[in-house]
């Protein structure tokens, strides 16, 4: 692994720990989703900063939808897991997690995000007062498999080196 990959792996692990603490707290859902998005983005960057990673994606947001399903599919192939879910659903869920970032708004169609207030239908909405449908999607079969694979990869970052 490159120094940048190692550093992103370390930060992804720390973000996961923060997510775990927030998941058990009564704080508004935006906070744990914020860390979920940051955790998964850094996990993708572990892969992107490997020598064979796509350099053009190393310094941008919205990489989760583009990268994570591919990394997870490769991880499952390595472990001979053949119960893979619908990858279209997996990509859609990852894209929804990308959209939690304030700079990713689907060309202004999706101003909702987990950090800054946004204007919608005559009202200014604070993330702390918003509900986010993606939180419920994490409980679906696809969401559970996504969370499990991402947690496993975060705890075993050396696996990434086998993917290139």
């Amino acid at each position: 692994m490159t120094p940048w990959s190692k550093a992103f792996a370390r930060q992804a692990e720390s973000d996961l720990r923060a997510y775990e603490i927030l998941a058990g707290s009564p704080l508004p859902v935006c906070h744990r989703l914020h860390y979920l998005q940051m955790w998964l983005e850094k996990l993708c960057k572990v892969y992107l900063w490997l020598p064979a990673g796509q350099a053009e994606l190393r310094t941008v947001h919205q990489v989760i939808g583009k990268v994570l399903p591919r990394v997870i599919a490769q991880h499952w192939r390595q472990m001979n897991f053949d119960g893979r879910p619908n990858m279209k659903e997996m990509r859609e869920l990852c894209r929804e997690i990308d959209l939690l970032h304030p700079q990713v708004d689907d060309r202004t169609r999706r101003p909702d995000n987990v950090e800054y207030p946004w204007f919608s239908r005559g009202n200014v909405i604070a993330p702390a007062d918003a509900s986010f449908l993606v939180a419920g999607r994490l409980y679906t079969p696809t969401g559970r498999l996504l969370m499990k694979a991402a947690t496993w990869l975060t705890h075993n970052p050396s696996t990434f080196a086998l993917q290139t």
Partner: protein
Amino acid sequence: MNQRPVHGTLGRMPSKKEVAESLARAHRVADPDIVRIVQLVSGHEGDENEPVKLLEVNPSTSESGVLPIAFGAAPPDVPYPSIVVEVTPGEFAQITARSLLLPEGWTLGDTLFAA
């Protein structure tokens, strides 16, 4: 507002067992492939900050060992946060045979659902 309900419909603070049963129902609705749910208990269950922990047996999951995953509440369908360890039926057999170990201090508690 996204705040964790503490009284639910019981008119009082639900016990940890009641919370676990409520979560088991919600998780089964979200993923009908689950064939068994067992509550996991530690020596800190008297601590209100100790999360509800569920072992969920699912033939559709990957065989990744014992991997606790934090899930937050997602009201109204899932009213409380929890820690979920999802395993295959084969892994569950290994856990009961003690050839696959739970995290230190965690033991199998009541079975909340069995298909």
